[in-house]
């Protein structure tokens, strides 16, 4: 009996498959699974961002922190282990800088971003909210298609942030938009809830006392015309992130670098510059102090030097004078 049932179901499934292939043509279902994890040394904000992303991406698999920061190619094996074909890896450095790696294992390209202006849902008190696991609309800036490296970035984003149809925990309704915009050489990510308000209803409420009949008529009208009557507005959900692409590698966490952002300045360098600039003040002052000492000596204003013309002091003074004139 069971065999019969099996054969029947098999036949049905094959039929349905055929139908689907007929209707969609050569397009297959896009299977996407994202491995999300971070390195050690993330701060709470980084952790919260991770949490937000996992809650927004039902097709993601969250894993424990990765121990190493140098052998990132281990991630490929990990992805294989978890059956994932996308990796979203957050690398924290010095407990303040966050880098995001986006990759297509086993041999897709890898993009490394520097994460800036990071704000999680927790700290942004936005009133927007959406279903956990609903599929987002992905809105891309046209600029993404202007340059090849941006095209790669866009493709990776489509696959990691786009929830595939029929993903395990996904919901059938669409109630939020993720927007990706290129501005100032950076990718800005925002997430909005879609609020629908029926205009007909609003009007009815506005009229209020006029009578139920009118309301009914309007409702009917609304039903007839349907779609055009609703007004769409957006409410931001969060999180907010700005990504600066740094490099693109040809392989997954390996291979030659095929793109490098020349506008990118490492935060370490920035900090060093800042520190140097501040140190300069001290350096200048200390140099001035030394110069003043020498000048004093040259003018014999120093009390102890007044009597003595020769000897060691005299030699010192001569040397000092020499230095002074050389400097000038």
């Amino acid at each position, binding site marked *: 009996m069971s065999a019969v049932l099996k054969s029947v179901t098999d036949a049905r499934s094959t039929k349905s498959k055929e139908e689907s292939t007929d209707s*969609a*043509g050569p*397009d*297959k279902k*896009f299977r996407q699974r994202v491995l999300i994890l971070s390195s050690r040394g993330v701060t709470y904000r980084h952790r919260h961002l991770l949490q937000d992303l996992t809650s927004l991406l039902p097709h993601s698999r969250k894993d424990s922190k990765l121990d190493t920061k140098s052998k990132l190619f281990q991630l490929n094996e990990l992805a294989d282990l978890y059956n994932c074909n996308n990796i979203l890896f957050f690398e924290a450095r010095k407990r303040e800088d966050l880098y995001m790696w986006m990759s*297509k294992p086993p*041999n897709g*390209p890898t993009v490394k971003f520097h994460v800036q202006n990071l704000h999680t*849902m*927790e700290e942004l*008190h*936005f*009133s927007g*909210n959406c*279903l*956990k*696991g609903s*599929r987002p*609309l*992905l*809105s*891309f*800036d*046209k600029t993404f298609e202007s340059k*090849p*490296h941006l*095209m*790669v970035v866009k*493709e990776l984003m*489509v*696959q990691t942030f*786009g929830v595939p*149809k029929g993903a395990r925990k996904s*919901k059938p*309704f*669409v*109630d939020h*938009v993720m*927007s990706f*915009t290129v*501005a*100032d050489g950076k990718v800005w990510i*925002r997430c909005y809830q*879609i609020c629908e308000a029926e205009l007909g209803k609003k009007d009815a409420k506005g009229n209020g006392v006029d009578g139920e009949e009118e309301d009914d008529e309007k409702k009917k009208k609304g039903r007839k015309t349907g*779609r055009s009557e609703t007004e*769409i507005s*957006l409410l931001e959900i969060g999180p907010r992130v700005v990504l600066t692409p740094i490099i*693109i590698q*040809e*392989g997954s966490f390996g291979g*030659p670098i*095929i*793109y*490098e952002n*020349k*506008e990118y*300045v490492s935060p370490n*360098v*920035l900090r060093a*510059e800042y520190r140097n600039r501040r140190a300069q003040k001290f350096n200048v002052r200390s140099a001035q102090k030394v110069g003043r000492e020498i000048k004093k000596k040259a003018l014999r204003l120093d009390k102890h030097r007044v009597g003595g013309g020769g000897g060691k002091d005299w030699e010192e003074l001569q040397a000092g004078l020499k230095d002074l004139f050389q400097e000038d």
Partner: protein
Amino acid sequence: MEVDGEWESESDEEEDSEDDERVIDMSKLEDSDSENSEDDDEEEEETKKPRNGILKSSKATTAADEEDEEDEEDEEDEEDIPLSEISEEDEDPEADIIPRQKLTIDNHSALTASHASIALPIKKSTPFSIHHTIITSTPVEIKDVHDDLTRELAFYTQALDAAKQGRALLLAEGAPFTRPTDYFAEMVKSEEHMGKIKEKIKEQAAMKQASTDAKRQRDLKKFGKQVQVARLQERQKEKREMLDKINILKRKRAGADLGDENEGDPFDIAIEKASKVNGREGRDRKGPNVKRQKRNEKFGYGGKKKFSKSGDAVSSGDLGGFNSKGMKKNSFGNGKKAKAPRPGKSKRQTRR
């Protein structure tokens, strides 16, 4: 598919060593004609590297030269690895601080190849419900990225357009879009979180309300003070006028007392009547009682009280109480009659 294979193989080889790269280049040369130019470029690139390095080290390049180089770079976008220098007058504020020279890589062919290798096979016939991606018709331009309001507005409009478009597409395809009101499921933000947010919003609203209230109150207070001052002044004026009137009447009355008592003045009578009503008889003729008058003299009534007891030029110059004899007086009286000398011992003893 051919392209894919090629690139993969190349990447593998490149990992091994740089020496192999040339060999592969040659193989690629044989492979396809289209890639010829790129390979040439690569080789050119290799020869260029040292030359540019010299340029950098010599630092003889003027600003104009740098610009030229950048122009070249733009033209040479087709090249595999253009070298570039970030000029000191860069628009980027960060680069403004840090003039640096950086070797950058922008391998267009490799990028396009890797894009092709991972791109989803999305065609026009592919239903929208499968990929859910919308690209704006025109590039989003933001004038000033550091201006929060305009930037966020641009993002919002982009997302809103996408939402409208996507909704229309999905509804046209018959795919579900709106969540029915009776569909409940776990949300991204928990109830607790939403409660927090609501509280925050309420708090903000309350604070706003409080601040506006305080402002209004302040304004009112300012105005109220003015009103109060005006009223006080008015009252004072009234009082003064009244006192003046009374004084005049009093004077009149005193004159009347001295002169003709019989002279009947209806106004006087009226005042008398009024005073009768006001206080007891007899007292108001002499004004306040004697005790009060004396006290007023002593302690003062009205006028400045401060420093009234301190000395001034007149008081210090006043020698009324001074007597030169007084200086010679001792406690027993006259100076001449000084106290009797102490009696002798025997006398004192006998006195006892």
